[in-house]
């Protein structure tokens, strides 16, 4: 273990090697490491964002589904209401038509009955007058009793 000038040579080599590392080795590797760290950080951030986007899209889809279901339900309710209304209208129309028909028929029947009654009365009056003439042929002067007969005829009518 002798000391000699090797020491100074080693000292110089020490600084030359350190300078080489500082200049040519350290910066590129550190740069690569930093870039990779940034890439990884970016990747993680992108993954987080994608996850959030997915969650939002799912929420939106659920919302849309709910809205569509509501709209469909509303539409069906409207249709049912309209159908019920149509049926009601048809029913009341039918009732009206039936009532009208019945009224017309009843009116016609009443008129016919009236006519029949009048005809019957005419015939009864004529029959009564004829019968009375036959009974009173001789006693009654048609001319004298014309007014009486006319009255009777009127009353029987």
């Amino acid at each position, binding site marked *: 273990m*002798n*000391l000699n000038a090797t020491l100074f040579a080693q*000292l110089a080599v*020490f600084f030359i090697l350190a300078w080489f590392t500082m200049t040519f*080795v*350290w910066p*590129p*590797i550190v740069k690569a*490491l930093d870039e*990779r760290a940034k890439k990884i950080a970016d990747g993680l951030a992108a993954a987080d964002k994608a996850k959030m986007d997915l969650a939002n899209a799912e929420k939106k889809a659920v919302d849309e589904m709910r809205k569509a279901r509501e709209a469909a339900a509303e539409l069906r309710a409207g249709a049912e209401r309209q159908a019920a209304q149509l049926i009601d209208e048809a029913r009341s129309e039918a009732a009206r038509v039936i009532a009208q028909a019945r009224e017309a028929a009843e009116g016609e029947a009443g008129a016919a009955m009236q006519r029949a009654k009048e005809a019957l009365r005419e015939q009864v009056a004529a029959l009564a007058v004829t019968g009375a003439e036959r009974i009173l042929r001789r006693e009654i002067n048609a001319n004298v009793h014309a007014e009486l007969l006319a009255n009777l005829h009127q009353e029987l009518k």
Partner: protein
Amino acid sequence: MSEHAVEQAASHGPTAGEYIVHHLTHWNTTGHPQAKIVDFSVFNVDTLIFSVAMGVAALFLLWRAASKATSGVPGRFQAAVELVLEMVADQAKGIIHSAESRKFIAPLALTVFVWIFFMNAMDMLPVDLLPLLWQTATGDHHAYLRVVPTADLNGTLGMSIGVLLVCLYYNVKIKGFGGWVHELFSAPFGSHPVLAPLNFMMQLIEFAAKTISHGMRLFGNMYAGELVFMLIALMGAAWAGTFTGAALWIGHVIAGSMWAIFHILIITLQAFIFMMLALVYTGQAHEGH
């Protein structure tokens, strides 16, 4: 060990002591073992070659990963480099709070960690492999070669002094020259003229202790590790057809495997500790007392 002893050893085949001393001698610019403890006219050629080679190999791998780095899905190699880099970056972030300083200190810590790991890993090669190849290549059967740059005090102290210089730079940069000088004389005991010399002494001791212990810790671990590998190698070298020799050879295989496996932990741990201490010391330079 004198040259004479080495020559003598060569003619007889080395004794255990000679074998180890030979292995612990550097190939330096003088061609023979360094005589004085401190001699700044000498370079350890082997330490320089292997530390630069390991530095270039380590940084080449890192650079390859960096030049192909993509922010997409990383390959296994890129992921492995990123793993190490992020480990260092996290440690730096926890210790040094100035992002501006981290631009230099974090790459420095990464360099230190990977480079020291590679240099320590030279210990995993068989102790005799590269020296033997080198001796064969040069034709000199006594050529010295030590392959672990971190088992050379020059190598580790060179790096810890580098860390010290970085600390001094950031002390001045963060606190201003005046602020730092003020701190030198007022911490740790408080700002009082009487205490100023004591504070300054403490600061000097602190800097020296940090730097020397920083370098010595790594050196000591790797030197001891290398020594243990050599002692284990000596067991195998005792193979001579006798029963004891055979038992020692088996002992070599078992102890060598165990120590090598344990050493995987040590080389990694020591590289990590050196890096962490470099971060802690530079971090302290950012904080006022």
